[in-house]
């Protein structure tokens, strides 16, 4: 038996507005039933990409296929795609129930089935009983759920979410992320989710695409994306990462030694480097150990002395910003995940930092 084609496939898709390239040669495919998150800074082309898939915008070049068929000539209202817009775009003159009913009517579902479907989807997003509320009588989180119900009610092949959570406060957003994960698992709809919140991306997705300036930087599952960022941009965009610039002095297998200011660091190289090449090293805050001045950490490959310049308490963790004289002015960030049981380092304290070679990722300079 042949493999079924991916549900969505983008082949060399580009979008230009005048001379400005909003999406630059995007390629990816998405299997049925999975959740893909597009992650990237503001203005990198995420919404444009979604709008092309939904059919509101057509690619300048390249091809989009849905279920293996090119959709160039298919207008948005003939595509089986539910979308939750960045600003929700609920119909303000309708009630919550009418909003959910609307796509069912427009897509000519049998009238006798509609009330039941509306009840069912309002139930799935936990809004039973809110059917007759007007949109402005609902809270932000409830409106968001109406938008999800509206996008799901007609059982689309594909669900597009354009940062629908960005307007919510942190707590509600995190609740909605889990809520959405629950709904998605229950219904199993293929989903493309857009966000610039890395946490949301890691929580919600089977696969993540990182974009910058219209181009896809990396596409991987959350764990490998976090562990093996393929370039400097991805490494610095995800997690709290410290960056150090230097020049290669020696390479040996995957280990590369490079000179930073007045010291030499050992890192893990993703590609081959020449001696003398400019490189950047990235180390995540949770992979750096912090010790009081007297201790000499054992079995650590990079050991540096420094002074705490900032100390930020985040409840479940302490974030230290440490200045190491041997690295020049570049600060190193450190997480301490158990601040109640560890020695606290105050601003101005001398400390020792250390980390393993394999955790310091080295990339060619951009």
């Amino acid at each position: 038996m042949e493999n079924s084609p991916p549900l969505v496939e983008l082949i060399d898709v580009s979008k230009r507005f005048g001379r400005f390239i909003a999406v630059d040669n995007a390629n990816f495919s998405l299997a049925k039933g999975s959740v893909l998150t597009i992650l990237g800074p503001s203005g990198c082309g995420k919404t444009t990409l979604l709008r092309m898939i939904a059919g509101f915008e057509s690619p300048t070049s390249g091809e989009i296929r849905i279920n293996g068929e090119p959709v160039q000539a298919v207008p948005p209202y003939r595509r089986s795609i539910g979308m939750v817009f960045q600003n929700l775009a609920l119909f303000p003159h309708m009630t919550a129930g009418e909003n959910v009913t609307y796509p069912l009517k427009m897509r000519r579902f049998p009238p006798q089935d509609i009330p039941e479907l509306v009840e069912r989807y309002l139930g799935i997003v936990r809004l039973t009983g809110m059917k007759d509320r007007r949109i402005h009588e609902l809270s932000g989180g409830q409106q968001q759920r109406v938008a999800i119900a509206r996008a799901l009610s007609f059982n689309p092949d594909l669900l597009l979410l354009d940062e629908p959570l960005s307007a919510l406060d942190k707590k509600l957003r995190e609740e909605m992320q889990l809520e959405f994960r629950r709904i998605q698992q229950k219904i199993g709809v293929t989903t493309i989710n857009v966000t610039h919140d890395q946490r949301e991306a890691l929580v919600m997705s089977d696969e993540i695409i990182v974009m910058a300036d219209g181009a896809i930087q990396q596409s991987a599952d959350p764990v490998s994306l976090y562990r093996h960022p393929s370039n400097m941009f991805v490494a610095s965009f995800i997690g709290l990462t410290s960056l150090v610039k230097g020049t290669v002095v020696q390479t040996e297998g995957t280990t590369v030694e490079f000179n930073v200011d007045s010291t030499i660091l050992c890192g893990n190289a993703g590609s081959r480097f020449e001696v003398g090449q400019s490189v950047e090293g990235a180390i995540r805050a949770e992979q750096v150990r912090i010790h009081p001045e007297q201790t000499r950490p054992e079995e650590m490959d990079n050991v540096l002395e420094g002074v705490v310049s900032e100390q930020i308490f985040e409840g479940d963790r302490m974030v230290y910003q440490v200045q190491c004289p041997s690295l020049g002015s570049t600060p190193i960030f450190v997480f301490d995940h158990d601040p109640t049981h560890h020695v606290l380092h105050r601003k101005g304290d001398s400390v020792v930092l250390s980390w393993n070679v394999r955790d310091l990722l080295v990339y060619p300079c951009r």
Partner: protein
Amino acid sequence: MTGTRSKSFVLWAIVWFDLILLSLPTIIIIGASFTTGDIVQFPPEGFSLKWYGKLWLLDDFKAAFFRTLYVSLICTAVSIPAGTLAAIGLARYRIHFQTSLQVYLLLPFTIPLVVSGLGMMIFFGDIRILGQLWPVGISLCIINLPFMIWAVSASVNGLDYQLENAAANCGAPPLQGFLTVTLPGVMPGVITGALLMFILAFNEFLVSLFLTDARTVTLPVSIYNSIRSVITPDLAAVSVVYIVIAFIAVLLLDKLVGLELFLKSK
């Protein structure tokens, strides 16, 4: 403390002064219409409804009133589709010569009414429809259309343009999306504009003066004509009828565009 108090006193004094100044003509006219005497005077001499009774017997005024109503309804009926589509088109679609078109649509507004009136009179005369009533309605629609366009534009601009995409995404073809989402969204503007058009047409004098004759005279023109002969309190009574109609329109507006509250979700 006393500072803010005297400030608010001054403010209130100004507000009241303005209110009285603005409503004085209305008050005087309303008062004068209830007089028992035979001349327009304020304060009125006694109190009676005799001029209102008489009004009903004045066939000229009555006929003129119904003609005005007819003209205003034509004006409103034409302006609703014309103004709504123009406003939505101008706001939503990238149209060629957009600014020129905008200027063109506002043109009736910048040309003195005397000029418009004269122009229309000549034009209607040429195409031999001068002397009929319906062209008056069309003319009033033309000269006042910018008001309609402005009223609807305000609603269109307040409407999330994404809603049309949302409708398409829900499976609505463009026309259906327009009817079910865009149009209800701009309804407050349409209602406001329509009532405005009605009132403006109902009160219009100058252009109607050019376009009507003895058989088609509208109420404002008819009042003007009778002022030139003799001023009797029945004129005051007619004016009060006017004021009442304007008042009803404002009430309607408030009641209908109270809808706007429902249409605002954010």
